[in-house]
């Protein structure tokens, strides 16, 4: 049952990273346990909650459904890469101003997913936002304020 280890070279939040992963590690486990990026969260470990959402080569993925060994050469962006130093991104600010988080455990996944939405669709409708984020579960907010935060970040007027 012994596992092998594998060296992975990739870019995480703009920095070159070389790390040693257990061959059994998912990207989620590698980010959290090997690299220390614990902003990415485990909620279900089978692709049904979105808490582990990261951006991989320009697309959002559930990092629990990616093997670490697959990430050789990949460009990965996590919640830790959203702010520019101490300058929060417009989306991060909108989440704070709209009170779009309560416990905060789903927030990193929502932020990464919503950022990807706004990159490809800068002016989404409410339905488009809800559809895009349907794979990210939040149990605290009823989603209302999360949707409004995304609308605010998109420059839309928020009631």
């Amino acid at each position, binding site marked *: 049952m012994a596992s092998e280890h594998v060296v992975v070279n990739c870019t995480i939040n703009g920095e070159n990273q070389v790390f040693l992963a257990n061959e059994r590690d998912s990207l989620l486990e590698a980010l959290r346990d090997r690299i220390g990026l614990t902003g990415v969260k485990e909620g279900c470990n089978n692709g049904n909650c979105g808490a582990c959402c990261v951006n991989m080569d320009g697309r959002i993925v559930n990092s629990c459904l990616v093997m670490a060994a697959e990430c050789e050469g990949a460009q990965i962006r996590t919640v830790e890469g959203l702010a520019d130093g101490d300058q929060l991104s417009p989306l991060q600010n909108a989440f704070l101003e709209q*009170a779009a988080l*309560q416990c905060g455990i789903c927030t990193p996944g929502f932020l990464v997913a919503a950022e990807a939405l706004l990159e490809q669709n800068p002016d989404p409708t409410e339905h488009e*936002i809800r559809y895009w984020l*349907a794979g990210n579960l939040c149990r*605290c907010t009823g989603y209302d*304020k999360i949707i409004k935060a995304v609308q605010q970040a998109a420059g839309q007027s928020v009631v």
Partner: protein
Amino acid sequence: MVTAQSPETEQYNVIGTRPIRPDGVDKVTGAAQYGADLQLPGMLAGRVLRSPHAHANIKSIDTSKAEALDGVLAVVVNADFPRAADKDVDTGEGSANLKWVLDNVIASDKVLYKGHAVAAVAATDHHIAEDALELIEVEYDLLTPVLDVRDAMVDGSPLLHDSLHTSELDGSKSDSPSNTASHLQFTKGEIDAGFDEADVVIEREFETSMAHQGYIETHNGTAYWRADGTLDIYTSTQGAFPVRDQVSALMQLSQSQVKVTPMEIGGGFGGKIPVYLEPLAALLSQKTGRPVKLTMNREEVLLATGPTSGTYMRVRMGAKRDGTITAAEVHLAFEAGAYPGSPVGAGAMCSLAPYDIPNQKIDGYDVVVNKPKTAAYRAPGAPQAEFATESVLNELAEELGLDPLEMRLSNASVEGNTTAAGMPFGVIGNVDCMTAAQQSPHWQSELEGPDRGRGVAQGFWFNIGFESSAYGQVNGDGQVSLVLGSTDIGGTRASIAMQLAETLGIAAEDVHPQVVDTASVGFTQVTGGSRTTFAGGWAAYECAMDIRNQMAQRAAQIWEVDEDTVEYGDDAIIRGPADEDGNPREISFKDLAAQLPTSGGHIVGRADVNKTSSGPAFATHIVDVEVDRDTGKVEILRYTAVQDAGTAIHPAYVEGQMQGGVAQGVGMALNEEYYYDESGDLKNASLLDYRMPTALDLPMIETNIVEVPNPGHPYGVRGVGEVPIIPPAPAVRAAIANAIGVHMTELPMSPRAILEATTLGGD
């Protein structure tokens, strides 16, 4: 965003505003440290072996192969724990028998539900720990599982506990053992006479499924048993002190030997009050001398941590033609799960509380079944009980041709009424919520279109108080470091700090709250019961008053005047008598703070409160639905939640509690259920098949905060978290009936259930 304060809070400077929460930046950057994020030097990873059977005797457990696996450092079973005394321990939501608490943490002679912990492993990494589980050999003697509350109550049903006898109404115990742990009853008036007065009587039976709190963060627990015999626990919990007390009792340590550090918590809703992993991590750490972190996966969370009770309920209610309710009889049988302790008592107390009904009889039964031990879930017991009572009330209104809100208003509990459970009402917002709902744009609007319907329901939750602590240190920069014992699930750092800021007359941003460990602050009860902003805020108020007094004393000292002549003003200016030249003596909070180090030292304010009172909360919800008759699927078209918050300290987080409660209530109404097969195997133990609402399943949820200040709180606060989960299910049921004329009798009202009740009805 709404930034204007409501009339009720205009008198305040901080209360009623919407500052950015103090912990917000850490939570949008990924810096916040939740329990599973913790790394300690030399830390081991642990996993738990769980029973594949719902009901079985454990014949033997052989851990030798697992222990021999390279990288495994320890394996523990129930027998490795100190023998738990047969006594009660405070669990943060009441008390429980210590032996049962331990047996739920790790099974002794019997497994009582699928997923019941049997052994735990610590290894150098979690992959190895997981491999080791497959090497543990357990021999079981299978027993027949009892999965339905009514089956469990029948004489001759297989018994979960040979030693369990029913606690009867008179306090006696039943002669023979039973799965019914207790029977409780509340009565008022003469029930038979009440029904004799009624022109219309409706009786309905209901069944509801177990449902899970569904917090997105799974359970975790890390322990480090130090060489000096002290034990450090790090965990995502709703109550660090109750964890300390449970773990110290189970490990037979003194409370002073155990320090619990509450990590950030990713949701709880009541489910993160019991201990599950902490005692296992503690024992594994004692055996290995190293820190051990245990985490659950989602399947384990659904299998083995607290759902809320499944129920069988029967309600009979009678009214006169004018809508006056004359009598109500409520029968509640609640599944406790594997060990006694369902929330049937709270459900019984809440079930008819919104209404002043002269003749009532409410019976509750707490029943063990081969399912996970239930834990508190947001207004524990009330969503089920009030689903039953509100549903029958709606049907009565329909039968009598009365507007359901009018009928509620004409029977509403008001100040001076007393419930069947003997709870007297002071100033309450019951009628205010109903009236606000009546006047809402939603209720005033017309609902058009085929297969669409509107429903309304009321909700009640009493809220609780109890112990909270707050320590505030005045810093030289004129700001305050505030130390709290309440873990912050949904913005309570903000709501407590705001009450301190208001009392001191300083800005919310000048208060820096920290949630600290059990050695660093006074005893504080769980974050739950909708008590934290209430009792924590009260502690903050008293802490601030302590600071005000000390600041005034210090100013008197500096000015060399009598203390009685100095006052701390609400504008944060400390004023004394005029000096010899007739100039006013005054100094701002900030200026005096700067002088503290050189004028006698820093000031720390302190408050430890224990409030037995609280402020009841009421809510009125309106929902519009559309039902697809071909598929049985219900779409929520529009939702309005009205709720009395007493005083909304941070309105955005009050709205958030209301919206989140609605989402959970809608989930319970439509799709969330524990689906067992006959063997007691939970077939939907994943977030794929345990269907919580997604962003696409809900509309925007309109909120209307009513503020009827609670006279029993310095700022009029009532708890807000619990009550909004109560009305959704009965409101949705009424809307479905209004849309397609079918009165559902079960939760969830899933597409399958609705199809069975309509198109596929009969055989």
